């Protein structure tokens, strides 16, 4: 099984505004780091040419979305918290508003399956509404892949 992760962030200002300029400048190095990081599988990209292009979506212009797939909980955790990514994360309040609700969700997927953004947003809504479960969880309440292997959602994705 592979691990899918979606996170959303509420931008303080439009992505092309001076307030976000330093964040946008960090996108290329931090995404390059992710793409080569041990355990990285896939991430949704807006553009193959422009590394600073953020995902366009229908969930509101104020939201910045990151959507990726990893080999394990540890590989994603090490990238997020034990790489140069941490320093960017530490500065998040300069660019993003604090969110009281869950802003990241993870779930297990069969290897080779590429989940849709809509599925990710549904999982996040599920986490908000019902709390963590094997179908939608966070690092604080994580489930290993064996807990998800027999879920209907995983069987559905395998069809």
């Amino acid at each position, binding site marked *: 099984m592979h691990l899918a992760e979606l996170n959303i962030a509420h931008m303080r200002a439009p992505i092309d505004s001076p307030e976000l300029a330093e964040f946008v400048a960090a996108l290329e190095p931090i995404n390059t780091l992710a793409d080569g990081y041990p355990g990285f599988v896939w991430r949704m990209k807006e553009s193959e040419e422009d590394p600073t292009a953020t995902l366009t979506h229908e969930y509101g212009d104020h939201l910045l979305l990151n959507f990726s797939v990893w080999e394990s909980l540890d590989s994603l955790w*090490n990238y*997020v*918290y*034990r*790489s*140069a990514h*941490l*320093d960017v*994360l*530490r500065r998040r*309040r300069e660019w993003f508003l*604090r969110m009281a609700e869950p802003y990241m969700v993870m779930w297990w997927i069969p290897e080779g399956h590429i989940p849709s953004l809509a599925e990710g947003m549904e999982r996040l809504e599920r986490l908000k509404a019902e709390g963590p479960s094997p179908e939608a969880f966070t690092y*604080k309440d994580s489930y290993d892949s064996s807990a998800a292997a027999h879920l209907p959602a995983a069987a559905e994705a395998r069809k």
Partner: protein
Amino acid sequence: MSDDDLEALALLHDPVRRSLYEAVAASGGDLGRGEAAEITGVSRTLAGHHLDKLVDAGLLESAFRQQEKKGPGSGRPAKVYRRAAGERSVSLPPRDYVALASVLAEVVDSLGAEEAAEKAARAAGERLGRGRSEPVEAVLRERGYEPYADGGTLRMRNCPFHVLSHEQPLLVCSMNLALCQGVLEGLGDDPGRARLDPRPGECCVALSKTKQD
């Protein structure tokens, strides 16, 4: 505190075992029996005996590493030792500050009070450094960071806040950075020497060399 913890730590009362444990810990990775014997100045057999005792007690972990050199006997993998990931602590009378710190970290997170936490950590660091005349390495070593030189950088092998830094990595690592900056400030050193440069398995903070170097 469990009886296991107490028994494991009591093993380190033996000076040979203690120096072997320290040699393995200071290597930061896998250390062979021969290397450990050489560092501590005891025979390979004696080193192996004590290292295995430390493995039995859960203070070290062992693994087998394929030998690089060619020639007779090279096919046999060498036994190597590394520090065990689990932590041991003994407190008499029993104390449990981690449980409370974990709850407090959760409160800081739920209030979004990171800035206040970092400010408090910086002040705490400043108090630790104030009035001391040693270099920052010595102060950090005393706090359990296990600093070591890595080219032009001073890195720290050990995270003194390990459990918390896994529960609340962003908060705890940011506070740790602020604390280290505070220590530098208290020592009259440049707080800008400390920066976040995390790696798996080590402390998230690294210090650049002083300008004099």
